[in-house]
């Protein structure tokens, strides 16, 4: 592989002066690294808004009855929290920020296949986000349907539904363009020697994700369009008064929105498969098993949407089939978890911030996954459907799963992206605080849900008060951890020490180039001669060199 030495005779993509100046050098740049950072910053902005809304929601639940807001405001707040976190943060999440930045570098390419389309997808993302924000100030008031937009309520509500829906449609378009771009890039732009089974597992996970984005997103696109058409023209396709069937809306919605949770989690699994070998200094256990489990999740994940609808009215046959597939899809996820743990066995582990995040992830994701099985089996689901148990499960897999790994990815690649190092000790502290707060907040929700607390309710019975208070205090701890982490990263960005080319000793291609990478990624065209995790191989070579 190429030289490891830090070369100072180059212009990094951060310093590069192009055609445009100031902010335009960023928002008009087709460089995949700049687009990735644009996405990263926009997403962190929306994430901050989403966290604030979550904080307000939890604060409202601190005491019975009215605490700080009216019921209608509460409805709007949980809807917006859902829309922002799902459509603007977690779905684009890791692929749009880190995928854009590292996919081309991982396969030894200079850029993605369609750089202009890539920039266009960020613009669409921004426009979609602005639509959602803009809708808050329209005459109808903020949308209150919940992020699922279920008909017939979304047809009856007097709040502003069309603009947020249009926003979601545009965001879907952006997601599709990213997917098309990634699939084409992986097929066309791999460097010499970068065979399919030499690709880093992060690339494999992005590749599987991109396929889901292409296959699933159009379906929610048409579903959203139909609700808009319904609002304007009253065609009647989902309106029971005119012979339409609201259950069909739920089917179409979940045909996308279930695979979408794999759009959210698969790239996170890819990042985990990068971080563990790097810090255990060991070849990943079962490379091909992880590859095929990603593809299997992408495929089987398409066939389980019905488990969201066990109580909405379906035949018993479809119910047990969907339940069966839900159990099947747990297998590839479990395969991955076992492979990660097996990779660490007898590795020489170096404890550091990205690795600590991964440890937290494995615990939280396992709890989230297992409670998913509780919801996936028919008899227990009837009891737990639409309770806080579901909310707890969802946050364990999405926040404890994807968002924790999003943070892990920031910590893992921060030195590469910005060329600065952060304070490791402070990072570890922030992870610890977040982990404690997270469990206080969401594990309590499992108990609340099991006891019968329904989700999305503004008020609750007296016996739930203590548990609600524990959860709310947990949310404060969690947010304190997030703020500490943000402070640490911002401080590093402003005045961190200069990062070396390969601070962690990773073997994938991004560590062979200086930090931050040069404009065209590589000083010379890379030629790949070994797999991404061949630590043993390199050590042998190193020994031979040492002996001679």
């Amino acid at each position: 592989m190429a030289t490891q030495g830090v070369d100072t005779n180059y212009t990094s993509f951060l310093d590069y002066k192009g055609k445009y100046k100031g902010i335009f050098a960023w928002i008009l740049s087709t460089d995949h690294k700049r687009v990735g950072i644009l996405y990263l910053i926009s997403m962190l902005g929306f994430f901050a808004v989403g966290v604030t809304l979550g904080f307000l929601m939890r604060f409202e639940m601190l005491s019975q009855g009215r605490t700080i807001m009216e019921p209608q405001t509460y409805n709007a707040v949980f809807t917006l929290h859902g829309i922002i976190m799902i459509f603007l943060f977690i779905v684009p999440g890791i692929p749009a920020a880190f995928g854009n930045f590292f996919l081309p570098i991982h396969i030894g390419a200079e850029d993605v296949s369609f750089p202009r389309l890539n920039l266009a997808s960020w613009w669409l993302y921004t426009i979609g986000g602005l639509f959602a924000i803009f809708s808050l100030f329209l005459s109808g008031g903020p949308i209150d349907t919940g992020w699922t937009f279920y008909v017939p309520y979304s047809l009856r509500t007097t709040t502003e539904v069309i603009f947020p829906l249009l926003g979601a449609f545009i965001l879907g378009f952006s997601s599709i363009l990213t997917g098309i771009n990634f699939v084409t890039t992986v097929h066309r732009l791999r460097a010499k020697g970068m065979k399919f089974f030499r690709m880093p597992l992060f690339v494999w996970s992005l590749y599987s994700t991109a396929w889901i984005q292409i296959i699933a997103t159009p379906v929610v696109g048409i579903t959203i369009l139909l609700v808009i058409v319904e609002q304007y023209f009253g065609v009647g396709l989902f309106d029971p008064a005119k012979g339409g069937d609201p259950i069909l809306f739920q089917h179409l919605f979940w045909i996308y929105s279930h695979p979408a949770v794999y759009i959210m989690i698969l790239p996170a699994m890819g990042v985990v498969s990068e971080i563990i070998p790097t810090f255990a200094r060991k070849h990943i256990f079962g490379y091909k098993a992880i590859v095929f489990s990603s593809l299997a999740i992408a495929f089987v994940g398409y066939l389980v949407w019905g488990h969201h609808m066990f109580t909405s009215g379906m035949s018993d046959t479809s119910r047990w089939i969907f339940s069966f597939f839900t159990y099947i899809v747990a297998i590839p996820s479990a395969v991955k978890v076992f492979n990660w743990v097996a990779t660490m066995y007898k590795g020489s582990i170096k404890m550091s911030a990205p690795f600590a995040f991964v440890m937290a992830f494995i615990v939280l994701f396992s709890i989230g996954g297992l409670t998913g099985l509780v919801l996936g089996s028919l008899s227990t689901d009837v009891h737990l459907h639409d309770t806080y148990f579901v909310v707890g499960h969802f946050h364990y897999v999405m926040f404890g799963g994807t968002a924790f790994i999003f943070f892990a990815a920031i910590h893992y690649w921060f030195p590469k992206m910005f060329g600065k190092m952060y304070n490791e000790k402070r990072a570890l502290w922030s992870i610890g605080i977040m982990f404690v707060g997270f469990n206080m907040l969401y594990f309590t929700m499992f108990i609340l849900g099991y006891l019968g607390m329904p989700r999305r309710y503004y008020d609750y019975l007296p016996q739930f008060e203590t548990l609600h208070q524990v959860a709310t205090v947990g949310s404060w701890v969690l947010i304190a951890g997030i703020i500490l982490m943000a402070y640490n990263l911002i401080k590093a960005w402003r005045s961190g020490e200069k990062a070396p080319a390969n601070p962690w000793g990773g073997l994938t291609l991004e560590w062979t180039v200086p930090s931050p990478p040069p404009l065209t990624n590589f000083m010379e065209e890379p030629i790949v001669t070994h797999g991404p995790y061949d630590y043993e191989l390199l050590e042998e070579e190193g020994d031979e060199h040492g002996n001679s």
Partner: protein
Amino acid sequence: MSTETVSHETHTHRDDYGAKIGMWLFLFTELLLFGGLFILYMAYRYQYSQEFHLAAKELDITMGTVNTMILLTSSLTMVLSIVALRKGNKLYSMLYLVLTKVFALGFMVIKYFEWSAKIHHGIYPGSETLADMSNGQVIFYGLYYTMTGLHGLHIIIGVVILAFMLSFIYRDKVTSDNYIKLENGGLYWHLVDLIWIFLFPLFYLLH
């Protein structure tokens, strides 16, 4: 959708095969977009087979058939335009493109008359006539307007794309040895055609 130029001054990257992969993937998403509507059609046809039967009789088969032939012919002229350009005949290529657009326009005109005849009879979403009809008929016309409407929207987008192609050929941005843009535009046009091939029997012929 097209070959992209990487914005480094020194380096121009062209990958026709990659551009085509991207286009096919995009067409795939278009199929799935309509796929959602086809699923709805299937579900409702199963639920309201009698009413669908009745409502379909109201549609004008002649107009539908003429439109089908127009669209099929426009696909032919589209291919001829690509062939002409590949052989280096810029003028004919542009001529065939214009012809394709004329057909597209003809399709839209006929569609306009078809829709306005229906609306004239009081059959449109939310109308009183429709409110008196059975649920199945309401759904049939709802699907009819939504699906042909979305298809019409795609025709308009297609015409805009072809207009760009026309100007690209005129300004020699698309030439006999760099015609991937035109080919991809053609693929889009065939997709629009293909979707109509399915809409036509589902609405007009299945009594």
